[in-house]
C-alpha cells in the first residue's frame, strides 16, 4: 500500500513536470522570429566585445533585412551543428551564420538568394613547407569546425585524418600548437585568422570551392523567403552589401 502511494506520488510529480513541456506553443503569442547565429566565425558572426551583442557581417545584414521587410527578429547565439539541426527542425525560424547553400542542406532547409560568395582554402603553419595545397593533405591531420563545408571537404580528401572542433578558433589554436597539420575553412575566415597571427599562419593553394552563403529559413516559414529575397535585392541595389564587405572584410 505504501509502495503504491509512493508510486502514485512520483507519477503525479512526473506528469506535472511534463505537462508544460507538452502543451503546444501558442503560435500567435510568438511575435518575434528567432534567428540563430553561431558567433564564433569572425568577421562574419562575432560577439561585440563592448556591447556583448551579436555583430558582424551576418547579424548586421539580418537586422537590415528585418528592418526592410518589417520583421521582428531576435538573434540567438548557438553552436553551428545545433544551429543547422535547429533550423531543419524549425526550432529556430531562421539562421544567418555564413551557411553555404548545399544540395544536402536544401533537402531539409530553405535558403534565401545568396548574399556572399566564398570558398574553402587550406591554412597551415608558416614554417611548414610540406603542404602546398589541398592535394598534399593525404596522410595529414586536418581540422575544422563541426558541420561546416570545410569539414565536409576535408572528409573528401583520401587518407586525411579529420578532427572536428566545436569552434573554428579551437582548430586554428590547435594548428598553431602544432597538433594539427592544416585547417580548412572559408577563405575570409582563414584570412582573418592569418591576419591575426601573421608570424605563425599562412594560407596555401587556391580557393578550391565555389560556395554561396544564404540565409537559412525553416520549412514551416516558406512565406518568409520571398520577403527576405526582396529586401536582400533592395539592399544589394542600394550598395549596402558592398558597404558591409568593406566594413567587415576590408574589400
Amino acid at each position, binding site marked *: 500500500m505504501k509502495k503504491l502511494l509512493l508510486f502514485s506520488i512520483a507519477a503525479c510529480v512526473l506528469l506535472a513536470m511534463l505537462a508544460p513541456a507538452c502543451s503546444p506553443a501558442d503560435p500567435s503569442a510568438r511575435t518575434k522570429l528567432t534567428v540563430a547565429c553561431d558567433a564564433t566565425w569572425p568577421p562574419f558572426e562575432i560577439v561585440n566585445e563592448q556591447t556583448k551583442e551579436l555583430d558582424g557581417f551576418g547579424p548586421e545584414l539580418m537586422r537590415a533585412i528585418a528592418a526592410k521587410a518589417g520583421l521582428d527578429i531576435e538573434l540567438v547565439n548557438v553552436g553551428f551543428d545545433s544551429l*543547422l539541426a535547429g533550423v531543419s*527542425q524549425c526550432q529556430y525560424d531562421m539562421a544567418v551564420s555564413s551557411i553555404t547553400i548545399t544540395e*544536402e542542406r536544401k533537402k531539409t532547409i530553405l535558403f534565401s538568394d545568396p548574399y556572399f560568395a566564398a570558398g574553402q582554402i587550406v591554412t597551415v603553419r608558416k614554417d611548414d613547407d610540406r603542404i602546398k595545397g589541398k592535394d598534399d593533405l593525404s596522410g595529414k591531420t586536418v581540422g575544422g569546425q*563541426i*558541420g561546416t563545408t570545410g569539414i*565536409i571537404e576535408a572528409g573528401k580528401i583520401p587518407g586525411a585524418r579529420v578532427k572536428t572542433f566545436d569552434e573554428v578558433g*579551437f582548430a586554428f*589554436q590547435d594548428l598553431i600548437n*602544432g597538433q594539427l597539420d592544416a585547417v580548412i575553412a572559408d577563405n575570409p575566415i582563414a584570412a582573418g585568422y592569418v591576419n591575426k597571427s601573421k608570424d605563425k599562419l599562412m594560407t596555401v593553394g587556391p580557393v578550391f570551392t565555389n560556395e554561396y552563403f544564404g540565409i537559412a529559413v525553416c520549412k514551416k516559414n516558406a512565406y518568409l523567403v520571398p520577403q527576405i529575397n526582396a529586401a536582400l535585392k533592395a539592399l544589394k541595389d542600394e550598395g549596402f552589401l558592398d558597404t558591409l564587405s568593406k566594413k567587415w572584410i576590408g574589400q
Partner: protein
Amino acid sequence: MSTSEKPQIPREELDHIPGAEPSSRLDAWWWLVALVVGITALLLIAWPDPFMDIFKFVQDGIVITVTVTLVSFVLVMIVGMVGGLSRLSTNRIIYMISTLYVELVRGVPLLVQLIIWYFAVPVMIQSLGKAWGLPVLEGFQADPVVMAIIGLVFCYGAYMSEIYRAGIQSIPKGQMEAARSLGMTYFQAMRHVVLPQAMRVILPPIGNEFIALLKDSSLVSVVAVADLTRRGREYSSMHFDPIEVWALVALLYLIMTLFSARVVNWIEKKTKFER
C-alpha cells in the same frame, strides 16, 4: 491446505540455503538493463534507416568512450588512494600539497580543465622548451586522447581522494592501533587491515564516481576526441535528424551506465559481510 501440495520453503530458510542466498540471486534491476537493450535492438532492427546508419557511424565513438573511461578509472583509483592517504598524512608538507590539489582541482569545472590541458598546457611546455633550449619540449605535441585521459584523471583523482579519506576515517582507530601493536608497520596495517575494510565502505561512492566519469567523458569531445557524443554531433550536423541521433546516443549511454551500476551492485553483494 491440502497435503498433496508441496509446502513452500519459507523465505527466511531459503535465504540460508547455499546457492539460493540473496547474494547469489540475480538482482531484479537487471530487467531495466534488458529493457533498454531491447528498445535499442528494436530500433536498430525495425528502423535500420536511420538508426543502423547512426549506429555504424558512432560505433568507433563507443570504443573511444569505453576506453577513455576504463583507463581513466584505473588511474583515478590509484591517484585517489595516494591522494586520500596523503590527506591523512601527519607529514605537514605532504598534507599541504594534497589538500591544495584537492581544493584547487575540485573548484574548477571539468570542461575548463580539459580545455586548459589540451589548448594551454602544450603551449606552456613548448615555450618552456624554447626558453631552456630543449628541442624535445619545444616540439611537444599533445595527443587528444592522452590529454583527455590526463584531464579526467587529474579532476576525478581529487574527488576520489576525498572518498578514500572518508572511507579510511570511517574505520575505527582501534583497528590501526591493534595492527600496529601486533608489530605491523604503518603501511602493512593500511594494506592488510584498514584499506580492505575501507574499500567495502567506499564501494557505493566509487561506483557512483565510475558512472559519473562515464558520463563526463562526453566532455572530452570538446578537445576533438571522437567519442560517442562527438560522433553523434558529427552525424547530426550532416543529416539534421537530432531526435533520432540523440535518442540512440542516450540509449547507448544508458546501456553502459545501467550495466555498470548492476556490476557495482553485484560486487557490493559479493563483498558484503554480516553485521
